[in-house]
């Protein structure tokens, strides 16, 4: 599984209000791209039902190499995790054209 086509897929589920800041941070940390889908859900900070702006979640996916993934998760833990509704998880994925990431 761990050949040279393997990259990290980091998924972040968090408040829609953070989109702007997070994307800026990810770029700075070395991510070459991202994908966003609209989401809703619930967790420790209650129900976020996406009925209106302040209450919407986004689900961000970033495919990147191990080092960038490490930097991103660390940054999220330091800067955002304490104050925002946020869940972060990562896994290994096998990608086409690994040089892209």
């Amino acid at each position: 599984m761990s050949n040279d086509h393997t990259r990290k897929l980091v998924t972040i589920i968090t408040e829609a209000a953070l989109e702007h800041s997070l994307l800026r941070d990810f770029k700075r940390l070395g991510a070459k791209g991202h994908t966003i889908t609209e989401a809703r859900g619930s967790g420790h900070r209650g129900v976020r039902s996406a009925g209106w702006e302040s209450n919407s979640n986004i689900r961000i996916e970033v495919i990147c190499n191990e080092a960038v993934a490490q930097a991103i998760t660390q940054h999220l833990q330091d800067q955002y995790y304490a104050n925002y509704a946020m869940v972060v998880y990562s896994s290994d994925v096998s990608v086409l054209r690994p040089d892209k990431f």
Partner: protein
Amino acid sequence: MAVIDPIILFFLLGLAASAMRSELRLPAAVYDFVSILLLLAIGLKGGVELARQPFGSLLPQMLAVVLMGSMLPLVAFPVLRLIGRMNRADAASIAAHYGSVSVGTYAVAVSWFDARQIDFEAHMPLLLTLLEVPAILVGIVLARGLSRETRWSDVAHEVFLGKGIVLLLGGLLIGWIAGEDGLVSIKPLFIDLFKGFLAIFLLEMGLIAAAQLGTLRRHGVFLLLFGIGMPLFSSVVGAALGWGLGLSVGGTAMLAVLAASASYIAVPAAMRISVPDANPTLSLTASLGITFPFNILLGIPIYYALAQQLHAWLGS
């Protein structure tokens, strides 16, 4: 004259549906669409009026309301800290919500005034737009001090370029440039349908407000009292200022409404970015769950009576 404005009934329908856990939900896109139309419409109407009067004569009023918007959070903050025993961030954030304004409350007041054919100064949308901003800046300073760490350029971006301000200000400018005649062709959408869209908006607001009430139980009686007491206090400040500025009875009442209303769009978004350690549930429960319903159900007539009294006592 109807005893109760039908658009208020839509709000109650939303409250009831949510309280009974109905499946009723408006798609987020519908809420966005309706609020975009309302913001533009309010701006357009105000802009048309601005074109009619020399801009210079408004400057004193503009400065005065900016000052009011900056002072109200300074009153709320110590109350929240000392009586409410809240931490600094929460107190600052809630104070900012109450110094700023609610466009939805303003729209309901316009509808209430219209139904009673009460005139008010037509440049109110300009004051509304101005009032959105200063409380946010004061709130951030209350939370952080004049810290070097605050990224003021980010704050400014968030505050001045949020959806609400852009659409209100854009509408004002378009109305001002195009004038009444220029807007005839778009009147059917923005003016004739205004109350219908306001009804849909209030239906959704009812659904949202009821959802906030769930959290009220946890935050106890102080929030409830503050959510009613603060607007009552602010309305007196607003009405006094209106009288001082020489506004008509209607205009005085409308400034009282603006002062009494609490933000639930621009301020929450800005606080989330700038004062992240403030708990957004607290401020939204207060502004959306308590103050908004209080204002549109009971507050508006109270504030109007207050303005009448003031003018009766002190002369116009």
